């Protein structure tokens, strides 16, 4: 049993999970609705905003059905009322199979690419095509795994894997990543496995019937399968999802070595797009492909200008259009690129096509709850009094400012070797960092001593 010896010698490989950094919305795991789409008060990281969450839940159902294209939703509300959180909640509940593209309104302004091109690319990234493709797989029973580590202890491991079917036997050379995933899957002699040749993904089908007498080595859930027949390498159809934009890119690339000389601007010709649309609808009619309309989320949508809005109007009418979700925190303001005032800085004709979800400021109880969730997310222990103080700060200044104080107060607490953040820690950071209103107060008092104060009459143009 040389093979099993070799398999047991391999040290346990640490599970390589992606380490995620804590972001502003990393505590959101969904919309927090029950099966009847009724919002729970606190669930999946969401607190309050019951009406808007319920509305978002209906939109989510519409997206999941996948029949309706080209609808647009606007989430409007004051700063810090959970607009982006609701959009993230929708993205999380859709799962990885539905494309979700998020961008900020200012992202489309680039010198390399026109605004409408950037918008069409974003639109096409949000539409998935599920398609069958042939791929090469290796399917067989493991005869032996042999892994050699270099004597010096450093350098790449090399390994050999012997696989067999009822008709043949082949030895494969393995790379270090493959060795790692073999030991992670705990593959040993007698297992029947498949390996996707292109991606290197290993899946265990079960144990071979010929090993059925080795009772001691397996649990109750072990499945026994027949040793495969014929050749080890087979072609198999797999289903995968690509976005329309990815198909565009594959087809617009200049072929061969000429690509070296053509300056690619990243813009895709409209002829290429038309061809691909025709091809995709042909596949769809033949039943070869399925279209999955996804979600395009544009945050800070008031940053778009009048040309973009008129483009959106037209783009939403195409049948290959995703569900568009926009968010803005502006009231009645100037439409960018014009001198007209309009609600949310969006032209009336586009507003007319939108379903508008409003968010409202959080109550004290909700603020308290959100701060509690963020404390857990940022791994900070908060005493009850400190929590009350922080909630007051959140109510009187802003929720974002209060959230900012959590990790800073946590650090102050750790520096004085405390385990739980006390009111003093909050006071300390509150005095160290100004919130927006105290900062403006300070400005007003000391305006005269700042540089360039003679130009104070000029207001900054932000819209």
């Amino acid at each position, binding site marked *: 049993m040389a093979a099993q010896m070799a398999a047991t010698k391999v040290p346990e490989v640490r599970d390589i999970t992606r380490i995620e950094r804590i972001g502003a919305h990393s505590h959101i795991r969904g919309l927090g609705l029950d099966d009847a789409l009724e919002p729970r008060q606190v669930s999946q990281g969401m607190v309050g905003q019951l009406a808007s969450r319920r509305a978002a839940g209906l939109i989510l159902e519409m997206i999941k059905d996948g029949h309706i294209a080209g609808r647009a939703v606007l989430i409007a509300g004051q700063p810090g009322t959970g607009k982006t959180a609701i959009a993230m909640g929708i993205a999380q509940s859709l799962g990885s199979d539905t494309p979700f593209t998020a961008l900020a309104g200012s992202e489309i302004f680039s010198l390399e690419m026109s605004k409408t091109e950037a918008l069409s690319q974003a639109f096409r990234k949000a539409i998935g095509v599920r398609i069958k493709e042939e791929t090469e797989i290796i399917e067989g029973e493991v005869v032996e795994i042999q892994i050699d580590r270099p004597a010096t202890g450093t350098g790449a491991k090399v390994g*050999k894997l012997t696989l067999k079917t*009822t*008709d*043949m036997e082949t030895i*494969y*050379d393995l790379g270090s990543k493959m060795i790692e995933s073999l030991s992670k899957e705990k593959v040993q002699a007698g297992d029947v496995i498949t390996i996707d040749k292109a991606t290197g993904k290993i899946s265990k089908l079960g144990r071979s019937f010929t090993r059925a007498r080795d009772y001691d080595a397996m649990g109750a859930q072990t499945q026994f399968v027949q040793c495969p027949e*014929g*050749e080890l390498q087979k072609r198999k159809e797999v289903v995968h999802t690509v976005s329309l934009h*990815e198909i565009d890119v*594959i087809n617009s690339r200049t072929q061969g070595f000429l690509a070296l000389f053509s300056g690619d601007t990243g813009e895709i010709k409209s002829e290429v797009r038309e061809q691909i649309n025709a091809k995709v609808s042909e596949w769809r009619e033949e039943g070869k492909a399925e279209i999955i309309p996804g979600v395009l989320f544009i945050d800070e949508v008031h940053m778009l200008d009048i040309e973009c809005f008129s483009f959106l109007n037209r783009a939403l009418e195409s049948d290959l259009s995703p569900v568009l979700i926009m968010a803005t925190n502006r009231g009645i303001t100037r439409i960018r690129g014009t001198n007209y005032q309009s609600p949310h800085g969006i032209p009336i004709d586009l507003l007319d096509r939108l379903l508008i979800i409003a968010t409202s400021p959080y109550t004290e109880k909700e603020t308290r709850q959100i701060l509690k969730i963020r404390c857990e997310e940022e791994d900070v222990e908060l005493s009850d009094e400190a929590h009350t103080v922080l909630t007051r700060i959140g109510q009187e200044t802003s929720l974002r400012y209060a959230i900012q104080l959590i990790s800073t107060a946590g650090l102050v607490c750790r520096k004085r070797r405390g385990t739980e953040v006390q009111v003093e820690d909050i006071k300390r950071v509150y005095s160290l960092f100004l919130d927006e209103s105290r900062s403006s107060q300070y400005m007003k008092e000391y305006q005269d001593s700042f540089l360039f104060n003679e130009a104070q009459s000029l207001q900054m143009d932000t819209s």
Partner: protein
Amino acid sequence: MFFFFFVPVVFSVSMGTFSVPEVDYYVFSIMAVQSWSEVLRSAKKTALISDGKRKVHYLFTDGSEMAEEYDMRTDELILRQLRSKTKLGGAGQWQVEVGERNPSAVPSTDTEIKESSSNPLFIRKDTKASFQWRVRNIPYPVDTYSVSVEPAERCCIIRTTNKKYYKKFSIPDLDRCQLPLESTALSFSHANNTLIISYKKPKEILTLEQELMRELKKLKGTNEGDVDCKTQ
């Protein structure tokens, strides 16, 4: 580097004098409507001569490509490889049908799983009179092997009694011309760790190949030496 990178500047001849019907076909599979000789004729062909080899590149009307290399003295086919567009529209991989591509000097290390060099190696290497396959690096005695024709599946199968080697292969040339597979045409021998399997070419194939060779010789190819590439 493949030779057809120079193709755009080499004199190119299109022989499409008759109209090609708008039919979807694939070079890899059996053609129902057009015969293979017509497909070859309508393909855009480019030739060049270097290293004592006549190298021909075919571009078919559906965008797939075929590249062949012939020995100048014996007119034997040394290499044939095919490539078609992937389903999403990108360029596919070259599939070697006859001969072997020069192995790169540095073996690529980024492939995570590949067959060990100690395994048997299967290649096709034709002669004038027959299709021939060689399985190199296979040491078992000659009575281990059995080679059979499966007319229903349109393929041949090599089996071994010790269950060490098994290979199913088709003969694309016969598939393209829609000719039947005959078990009488098949024979094999084993020597020097190599199993050689021969299939006698039928008359239709022989005439087609002679005709093609005549056409290829008419193509004006450039002579040996460097081709000046205008785009570089």
